[in-house]
Structure formats: structure tokens, C-alpha cells
């Protein structure tokens, strides 16, 4: 008796309270009355030119059902239950079942379904208070609500008629049970009761082929397959399908596969006949999936709508899971229910109070919005790219679909008549099906535009700091030569010659080593000419520059020009070429002056050349080597430096970058080193970063130990810290001094003899191998 009272109580309490609540004020009733009064004025029709029709109702809807003859649609919501007649140009309200109903708004609808065959004029709605209501739309007088079934203690989430026998009704309820009624006997209680042994049932659906089977979706994320003929036993099959609640299931028209959707934003397709516990297909969507339906006539396509945040209805092809094939974007808020009238016409309703009739050509194809080809660089200058090689005609290219999965649904369908041979089942169970192979090809191109290795080697080995131009150039030239950059090496050599108080003999020898025929002219001018020619040459292998006959012709012409120029210069400054040739008499200062004057133009040209080439490394290095001899526009210099430093940072050559920043004469660049430099202290015990205050840190946050405590008094040392370089133990200067007055071993007991025996007795800290260090902690 007691338990009876317990179970009865909730309903009565709920209904009395709810009765009171709605007795007083209910916006719903107010709405409802106005709705019936003005329904013709308030609703607006968006008479699409091509079949897109919107129909606005007074309140949000939750569900939609199409009549068996497809001439009418039932929409249901919190306080709406209407029959609409829909054609390609307009939507007309036929019947408002709420009007004149004795049922209060508490009986609002979670779901609506239209009966079939014997019950084709009947509707079933599932109410949030646990009732299932049967409506007879043919009744013209009296109550249209034919029967109210109150057998569930909690809200009913879904109802479902058996596909060919409209007298069998199945329900899924929040109370964890599914119940089945035979409607032929209006008095009879539920014929079967199915206990899922799980939490609330969110969805239930009959198998369209084997009508005694049904699938159910549970709040725990499982889906179960049941056989009605065996109601005593447990479920036949159970899949833990989703992480979080599973909200919807739908049988494939073949009666073999079930698609499920859940809050974890996935749609999964299951083969109900196999023992495999993995889904055949998984589609990841953008939002929690609240309803799904296979698109009639297209065996690979699933339609889905979201629980929240996404206002679109998507059509997916299971063979191409990463992008929707079509998307309808007609609702302003989340759509809550939809149903295909035929394979091209979709009716949907949503929280935005709108009912929409749409056709497939109203949907857009997300694939067409996306770019099919793409490319990207990495820092080494490699280029990765994808190229689409699919024909753009079909959404899924049959040739590219992986052989296994292509056969899965299709072959199983063909073999279905043979009662699913064992071999076929085996085939699809064990192996993971590769769902989709993208039709794009991708590749990586190594473009020889930037030699990363040479760059970093140069960056590391170039001498930029030395004050002696000659040695710098020599060294850099060597580096370049070893790397096989003969032209760069040559450039450095020439620079060395230019800025060297020339010794001709050496130069000539060098030139001969290079195997270059020289006309006996002034060395340096020749060098300069060569250089300028070298600059004029666009590219080509470094060797060919000197050997090509054209180059020689140019050489002569240019040489003549240069001769003239140089002669002028020389005469003005009373420095003769012949003099320079033989004289080593010039003082260094003089030679600097001279060379500065002499070669500024050439170096500028050189710099221009490298700037054109985009070789900031060379520009910066050249400038740094010659920084005392040439002038460069500071804006230009800043550009070079910042570009070069950026490059160095990108390749993680921090040391070189710092050196370059330090060497830079421009204050704004030098600031970089001062701004972004932090020195972190690591704990000497656990090696974690110590997050101290600005004054420093006393202890490690991680291991809660003091940092560098005194070995004697175990206090933190402020001021002078003294430690032995042999064993790394130390402490206060005073304590250490006292200790080592008497002892010669380390105070921590590590066994190290910190004092040098011979010097024990002589004057302390300076005499032993202690090293004093100032640490301001």
C-alpha cells in the first residue's frame, strides 16, 4: 500500500500545482485565444516563387508530422496543435485542435505522429506531463481528443505508430520505460511494457521492414534494439553509442541500419545485425544533434537538425562525413522538427514560430562555398599544396570511395534477400571502415628560393664583430667558399682587396689562382670593375661569370668608363693608381680615408644589388664589417636589420640575433635587447621556475624549499654568499669563516675537502679555494 501511495503522489501533486499556476495567469491561454481569433490576419505567407513557403504561427513548435496521404501536415508545440494544408504556393490552416479542447495547456506536445491505415485520420501527441493524447480529426462535433492515456509517470518524449499497422502505438518516456498499446481496444491498458534498465528514453522507432523490432535512444548514450515478440527478456542488442545523451534514432529504409544522433555532436550509423560494437560511419556535426532522418530515395543521405546554436538543417552523405552535402538556412532560430514529404520536399518547423516548406534546390551546398585548392609556406621556404582532382559534378565520387565502405551498404542491401550471409557480416565487423578518402592530392614542393641551411651556417659563422676588415673578409670568404658559394666568397675577397692598403703582388697571385685572365691594368680598378660586372650579371653559376666571353667584353667597356671616372677622382685627390700600386707607405689612417672615398660608390652598388636580391644577411654582414668605412642611410639600415633579426629569430638563431642587435648602431634596434629580456631563476632543488617578487625569491613555490640556504644555519643568505666550487655548498660568509677556522671538510657532510691543505692556516677567504660571489637575493 505504501509504495502505491508513493508512486501516485507525484502526479497528483504536480497536477494540482500546475492547475493553480495556469489558473491564474497564463500567457499561453491569452495567446491561444487571440490565435484563434486572428489567425488569418496575423500569419504571413511568404509565397515563394518556386515552392519556398513560410508560415508563421503564434508560438514555437516542437514537432511535425505528415499525413499518410501527404496532403496535410500536423504541427505541435507547447501551446499549438494544428493541421495545415500545404502546397507549393501556400500554407493554409485547416484545423486547430487546441480550439475547444477541454485539455489544458499542461497537455502540451513534445511530439506528434500521424497514424496510418486504420488510424489515418488520427493523431497521437506526447505530452510533457506524461500523457499520450489521441486525436480524431474527422470528428466534427464534440471533443476531438479521443483518448488520453495516462500511464507514464514522467514526460513522454516520443510516440511512434507501427509502420503498416496504425493500431499499434509505442511510446518513449522520461521515466525509463517504453510502452506499447493496441488502439483497437480503447479501454485496454498498455499491452507491453519495456524497461530499458537505463535512464530516460529519448526516442523510439519501429523497424520499417521487420515491424516487430524497434530501436530506442537513451539518455545514457546507449541505443537498444528490441523485439516486441519477446517483451519479457532484455533488449536484443545494445550499443553504447554516444558520450552523453543519445537524442534520436532513425532506421534506414532497408531495416538493417540505424542512425543515431547525440549531444556529443555526432551522428553514427550502426549495423544492427552484426556483433560489431563500433559504428559503421561517424559524422561529426557542429552542434548537438536533436533529430535525424534518412532522406527518402537516397540511401546514403541523412538529414539532421541541431539542439541549439545552429539554425540550419543539414543533409549529410555518410560516405563524405566531413562536410554537409546540403544545408537549409531558412529558420531564424533552431529548427526543432522536420520531415521529408518526398525525396525533394522538406517540411520543417522551429523555435522561431515558423513552418517552412522547402525544396532541395533551396538548399545551398557548403562544398561550393569552400575553396578546393590550397597552399601554404613554411619558414624553410617549402610549399605545401593540395589540388582537387575530383570531378565537380557529383558530391561523392564513386570511384574514390574506399572499396570496402562502398560495398557496405550497397552490397548488404543486395544480399539482404539472402538473409545476410555470414561471410558478409564477418567482412564488415572486424575491419575499420575507411569512411572517406579526400579527392585532393597534396604535395610538398621544395623550392630552391631560400637556402635555409646556408643561411643559418652563414649566420653562425660570419665574423661581424672584429674590427679588422681584412681578417673579417678573409674569414667570411672562407666560410662562403667552404659552403660552395664561390661568388659570395669572391665578393668578400674583393671587399678585402678594396679595403686593404693594397699589396698588388698578392692580389695578382690570388687572381691567378682563381684562373682568371687579367689585362695588366690597375688592380683595384680591375677589381672594382669586376665587381660591378658581377653585380650586373643577373644570375647563373658563379663560375661562368669570369669565363664567358661576353663578360669580358663588358669588362672592357666598363673598364674604360671606370678608368675615366677613377682618373678624375684620382687627379682631384692626388692619389695616383700607380702610387697605390707600389706604395705601402701610407699610414693606416690615410688609407682608410682614401678607401672610404674611393669605394663608397662600389659598396653602395653592391648593397643595392643585395637589397634587390633580398639578401638582408649579406647586407647586414657587409655593413657590420665595413661599419667604420661606409655610410648608409639609417632608414635603410633599420629595414635591413629588422628584417635580418626577424629572420634569425624565425630560425631560432637567438645568439646570432643578439649579437647582431648588439652590433647595430641604431638605437631603436638596440632597444629590442633591453625590452624583451628576462632572466629566470630555477630552483636548485627541483629545477622548476621560481616565481619570485621583484626583490627576488626566498623559497621555491613548487617544492617549498629555501633557495640557496646557508649550510650552517639553514637560513636564506642575504648579502654575501660564499660557496665552494668543488662541491657547490656554501652559506653566510661569517658562518663559513667560523667553520673553516676549525674544519677542512664541507659543513654539509658531503665529504669534500673544501680547503687546500697547505693553505689552511693562512689568511681566510683569500687563501683557500673559496670564491666570493655577490648574490643579492
Amino acid at each position, binding site marked *: 500500500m505504501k509504495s502505491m501511495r508513493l508512486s501516485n503522489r507525484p502526479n497528483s501533486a*504536480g497536477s494540482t500545482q500546475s492547475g493553480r*499556476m495556469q489558473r491564474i495567469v497564463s500567457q499561453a491561454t491569452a495567446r491561444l485565444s487571440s490565435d484563434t481569433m486572428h489567425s488569418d490576419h496575423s500569419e504571413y505567407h511568404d509565397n515563394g516563387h518556386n515552392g519556398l513557403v513560410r508560415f508563421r504561427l503564434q508560438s514555437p513548435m516542437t514537432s511535425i508530422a505528415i499525413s499518410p496521404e501527404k496532403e496535410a501536415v500536423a504541427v505541435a508545440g507547447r*501551446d499549438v496543435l494544428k493541421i495545415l494544408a500545404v502546397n507549393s504556393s501556400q500554407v493554409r490552416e485547416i484545423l486547430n485542435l487546441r480550439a475547444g479542447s477541454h485539455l489544458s495547456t499542461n497537455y502540451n506536445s513534445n511530439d506528434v505522429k500521424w497514424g496510418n491505415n486504420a488510424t489515418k485520420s488520427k493523431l497521437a501527441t506526447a505530452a510533457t506531463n506524461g500523457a499520450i493524447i489521441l486525436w480524431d480529426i474527422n470528428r466534427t462535433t464534440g471533443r476531438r481528443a479521443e483518448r488520453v492515456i495516462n500511464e507514464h509517470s514522467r514526460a513522454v518524449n516520443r510516440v511512434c505508430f507501427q509502420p503498416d499497422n496504425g493500431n499499434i502505438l509505442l511510446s518513449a518516456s*522520461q521515466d525509463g520505460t517504453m510502452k506499447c498499446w493496441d488502439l483497437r481496444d480503447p479501454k485496454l491498458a498498455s499491452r507491453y511494457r519495456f524497461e530499458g534498465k537505463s*535512464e530516460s528514453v529519448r526516442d523510439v522507432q519501429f523497424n520499417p521492414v521487420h515491424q516487430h523490432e524497434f530501436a530506442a535512444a537513451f539518455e545514457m548514450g546507449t541505443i537498444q534494439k528490441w523485439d516486441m515478440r519477446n517483451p519479457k527478456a532484455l533488449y536484443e542488442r545494445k550499443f553504447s553509442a554516444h558520450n552523453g545523451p543519445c537524442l534520436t534514432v532513425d532506421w534506414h529504409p532497408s531495416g538493417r541500419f540505424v542512425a543515431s544522433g547525440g549531444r*556529443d555532436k555526432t551522428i553514427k550509423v550502426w549495423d544492427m545485425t552484426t556483433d560489431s560494437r563500433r559504428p559503421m560511419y561517424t559524422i561529426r556535426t557542429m552542434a548537438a544533434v536533436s533529430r535525424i532522418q534518412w532522406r527518402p530515395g537516397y540511401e546514403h543521405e541523412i538529414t539532421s537538425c541541431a539542439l541549439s546554436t545552429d539554425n540550419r538543417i543539414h543533409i549529410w552523405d555518410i560516405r563524405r562525413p566531413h562536410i554537409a552535402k546540403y544545408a537549409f538556412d531558412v529558420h531564424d532560430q533552431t529548427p526543432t522538427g522536420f520531415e521529408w514529404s518526398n525525396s525533394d520536399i522538406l517540411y520543417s518547423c522551429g523555435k522561431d514560430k515558423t513552418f517552412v516548406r522547402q525544396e532541395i534546390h533551396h538548399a545551398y551546398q557548403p562544398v561550393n562555398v569552400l575553396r578546393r585548392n590550397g597552399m601554404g609556406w613554411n619558414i624553410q621556404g617549402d610549399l605545401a599544396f593540395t589540388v582537387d582532382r575530383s570531378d565537380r559534378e557529383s558530391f561523392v565520387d564513386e570511384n574514390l570511395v574506399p572499396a570496402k565502405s562502398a560495398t557496405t551498404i550497397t552490397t548488404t542491401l543486395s544480399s539482404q534477400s539472402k538473409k545476410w550471409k555470414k561471410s558478409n557480416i564477418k567482412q564488415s565487423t572486424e575491419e575499420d571502415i575507411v569512411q572517406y578518402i579526400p579527392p585532393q592530392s597534396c604535395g610538398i614542393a621544395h623550392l630552391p628560393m631560400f637556402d635555409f641551411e646556408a643561411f643559418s651556417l652563414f649566420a653562425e659563422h660570419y665574423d661581424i664583430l672584429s674590427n679588422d676588415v681584412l681578417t673579417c673578409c678573409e674569414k667570411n670568404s672562407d666560410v662562403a667558399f667552404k659552403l660552395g658559394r664561390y661568388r659570395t666568397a669572391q665578393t668578400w675577397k674583393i671587399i678585402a682587396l678594396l679595403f686593404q692598403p693594397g699589396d698588388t703582388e698578392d692580389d695578382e697571385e690570388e687572381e691567378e689562382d682563381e684562373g682568371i685572365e687579367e689585362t695588366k691594368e690597375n688592380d683595384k680598378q680591375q677589381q672594382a670593375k669586376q665587381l660591378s660586372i658581377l653585380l650586373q650579371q643577373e644570375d647563373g653559376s658563379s663560375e661562368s661569370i669570369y669565363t664567358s666571353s661576353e663578360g669580358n667584353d663588358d669588362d672592357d667597356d666598363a673598364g674604360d668608363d671606370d678608368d675615366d671616372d677613377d682618373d678624375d677622382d684620382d687627379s682631384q685627390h692626388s692619389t695616383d693608381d700607380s702610387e697605390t700600386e707600389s706604395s705601402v707607405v701610407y699610414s693606416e689612417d690615410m688609407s682608410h680615408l682614401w678607401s672610404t672615398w674611393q669605394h663608397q660608390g662600389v659598396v653602395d652598388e653592391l648593397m643595392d644589388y643585395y637589397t634587390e636580391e633580398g639578401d638582408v644577411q649579406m647586407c647586414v654582414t657587409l655593413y657590420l664589417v665595413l661599419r667604420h668605412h661606409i655610410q648608409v642611410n639609417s632608414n635603410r639600415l633599420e629595414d635591413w636589420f629588422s628584417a635580418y633579426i626577424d629572420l634569425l629569430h624565425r630560425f631560432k638563431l637567438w645568439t646570432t640575433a643578439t649579437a647582431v642587435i648588439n652590433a647595430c648602431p641604431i638605437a631603436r634596434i638596440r632597444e629590442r635587447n633591453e625590452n624583451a629580456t628576462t632572466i629566470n631563476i630555477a630552483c636548485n632543488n627541483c629545477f622548476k621556475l621560481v616565481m619570485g617578487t621583484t626583490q627576488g625569491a626566498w623559497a621555491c613555490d613548487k617544492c617549498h624549499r629555501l633557495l640557496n640556504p646557508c649550510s650552517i644555519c639553514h637560513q636564506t643568505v642575504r648579502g654575501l654568499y660564499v660557496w665552494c666550487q668543488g662541491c657547490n655548498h656554501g652559506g653566510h660568509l661569517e658562518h663559513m669563516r667560523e667553520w673553516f677556522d676549525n674544519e677542512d671538510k664541507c659543513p654539509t657532510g658531503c665529504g669534500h675537502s673544501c680547503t687546500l691543505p697547505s693553505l689552511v692556516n693562512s689568511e681566510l677567504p683569500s687563501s683557500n679555494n673559496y670564491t666570493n660571489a655577490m648574490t643579492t637575493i
Partner: protein
Amino acid sequence: MNYDYPHINDSEITDTLEDTTGSDKPRILLMGLQRSGKSSIQRVVFGKMPPNDTLYLESTTKIQKEDITRSFIDFQIWDFPGQLNFFDVTYDSQEIFGAVGALIFVIDAQDDYSDALHRLFFTVTSAYRVNQNISFEVLIHKVDGLSDDYKIDTQRDVQQRMGDMLADAQMEHIHLSYYLTSIYDHSIYEAFSKIIQKLIRELPTLENLLNVLCQNSGIDKAYLFDTLTKIYIATDSSPVDMQSYELCSDMIDVIIDIELKLIFHLFRFLKKISAQVSSPNGRLSLSDDEEEYSNGNGGDPHHAVNGNGASLRDHYDTDRDEDEDGDNQSQEQSLRRTDGVGQNEAEASSLIKLDNGDVLYMREVNRLLVLICLLRHDNFEKHGLIDYNFQCFKEAVTEVFDFSQKRNNQQQQQQMVNLAQQQSSSE
């Protein structure tokens, strides 16, 4: 095995059981292997410990019993040390498992769980023999380190292996519920919500009441939260989506923070407080805005100011703020008079507007429960209606709990009588 511990603990258990016999509190047992995260769960969910601090928890060596008193849920959580075997003869398993409402078994998903599964099987079958009404809940815990695919695979594997083991022992009628949880997100709260909802007998009534409230007030989603633990003890029947749940439970944190501040500051200081509270939706800026509160939220200046944020206005009609003027005060006062209970406690309500046009509305049902609703901004225009409906809801909830209180008392008396009869007959 050290036999000293069990004896000590044994005496403790009998002590505590003497205390609790006759009390109506359903008991939740937390079990699992060592280091599977039982104490962490307990501290995080019931002790408000930040998840990162659980690293420092010591291993539990004896049964820790915690009474959740300040919470609506009159539960006892027993945290069992993982290294002890409670089906040993030294324990009175009848005493331990006789009055248990739910047995939560925690499995470390990041570890090899074969041992844990054997232990789980053993625990479940033994406990089932003692008490067939226990609901068995399996937390596949610490899944924060796993990828989505791996999570579901793990669950499937655990479920499969347990199912096979139970089937082999011909105990497949024992039902286990599995949850994937982590203390670093809301999954542990959701799992506990579901576990505790199973133990609440009033759940269908509460759910129905919430359904009715939602329908009549245009509310999208309503949760009845336990203030202390952030567990929702009931919600309306529409599916729980994670975002709204996270928003609502974060709102509780925000409100509690403010409430704590209020205890120390006078109400008027709130006007000057501009606390920044982080929420999943970005940042919430807190301000107190009486005028707008009273004139029904025409326009929303906050939206313009906080692009990404949401504005939070918090209103407390404590008795201390008698010098505060504004007509909203009278509104609240009159509402309070209608409920007829002359309570001196503060009845908090608060309102957060989100920049997507939704409104989060919180009302205190009683000292331990709050109702949090998520609704569209358009529907919030009928503020008075919602408040009125809420009052009805509140009365209904109070009535429901009064009723079950009475029923419990009756049951207890009945039990006492039965017990006395048994004793007398045995004598």
C-alpha cells in the same frame, strides 16, 4: 594485509551506524581502487575544492564519512579507502551495504583497469547479495586526458567486459550505469546530478512542476540546483545541453561569490563594486542598476558597453537595506508578503543578460535550492508573470517536500514499531 586497520575501522563503522540508524539519509558509497580519484571527487563536488588542489590529497587510509548537511541533499558520502577489502569477514557487510542508496565505483580510465574491473565485479556481486536495491554507478574517471574517440571506446570496452563477466556469473540482471567523468569539467557534476536524481523520490513531481513552469512562462530551460554542490536535482524534460548547464552552474559560483561579499559589505557598497568574473561566455561585468531593473528592461545599454560580455545585475532584498529607495523594493516586498512566510532570511534573485539575447534568471527557492532559468529576452518582458509563476512553483516545491518529510516520519515511526515488535516477539 594488515589486520590492525580493519578492527579499528570496524568499531568506527558500528559507532557511526548507531548514529545514523533511523535517519532517513540515503548513503552514497564511493569505492574504487587506490588512487582512482575517489577523495578528489568528494572534495571537488562536495567540498568546493579547486580541481588542481586535489593533487595534494593524501591517500585515504580509513573510511571517511561526510554528512552533506548544508546541502538540500541529505546524503552521506562514504569515501572508502581503496586498499581495503570490505567483504572480509571482519566487516559486517550487512551494516555497510544495507542502507546504501547508491554505490559509486570509480575507475581510473588513464590506467590499466583490468584489476579495477575485477574489483568492481566482486564489489557489485557481493553488495547485490546484501542489498538488491542499490543502484550501481560506474564512473570512468579521469577522462580529461583522453580523446573523444578513445573515451567512447574505453566506455564500450569497460561496459563490454563487465557485461561479459556478469553474464558469465549469470548476474546479468544487475544493472550498472556508466558515466565518463573528469573533475576538470562539468561532467562530474552532471554524473552526480543523475546519480542523485535517481535517489530523489520526488523527481517526477519536480520535473513536472518545472515543465509546467517552463511552458507557462516561456522559459527555455530550467534547473533546480542545490546551491552548495552545483548539482541539479531536477530539470524540465527537454534535453540538457551542456552549454546551458555550464552557464547556469557558473552563475551559481558568481552569485555565491557576490553573496559572500555581501556578508562583509553593506548592500549599498555593491553599487560601487565592479567585480570582474570570468565565465565560459567571456567576462561578466557586475553592476547594480536599480532603474533599469524596475522599468522592465526597455533597451539594453549593457550590451552596447560590454561587447562580448554580459551584464549582471544583482538584487538582494535583505532586511538591512531599508534605506534603499526604488519601486522594485516594494515589488519584492509585496511578493514576499504573498508567500506568507515571515522569514528573515535574504531571498536572493539575480539576473544575467547574455549577449546572444538570452537571459539567465535565478531565484532562491529556499535556503538550499535555487531555480535557474534560461529564457529568451523577449519572453522576459513578462517579468511579473514569471515572478508570479515562480511563487506558485516555490509553494508547490515546499508542499512536496513537506509531504515527503511527513511521510518519512511516518515511515520511521512504522519502522520503530516494527522493530519493537520484532524485539518483543524474539524475546
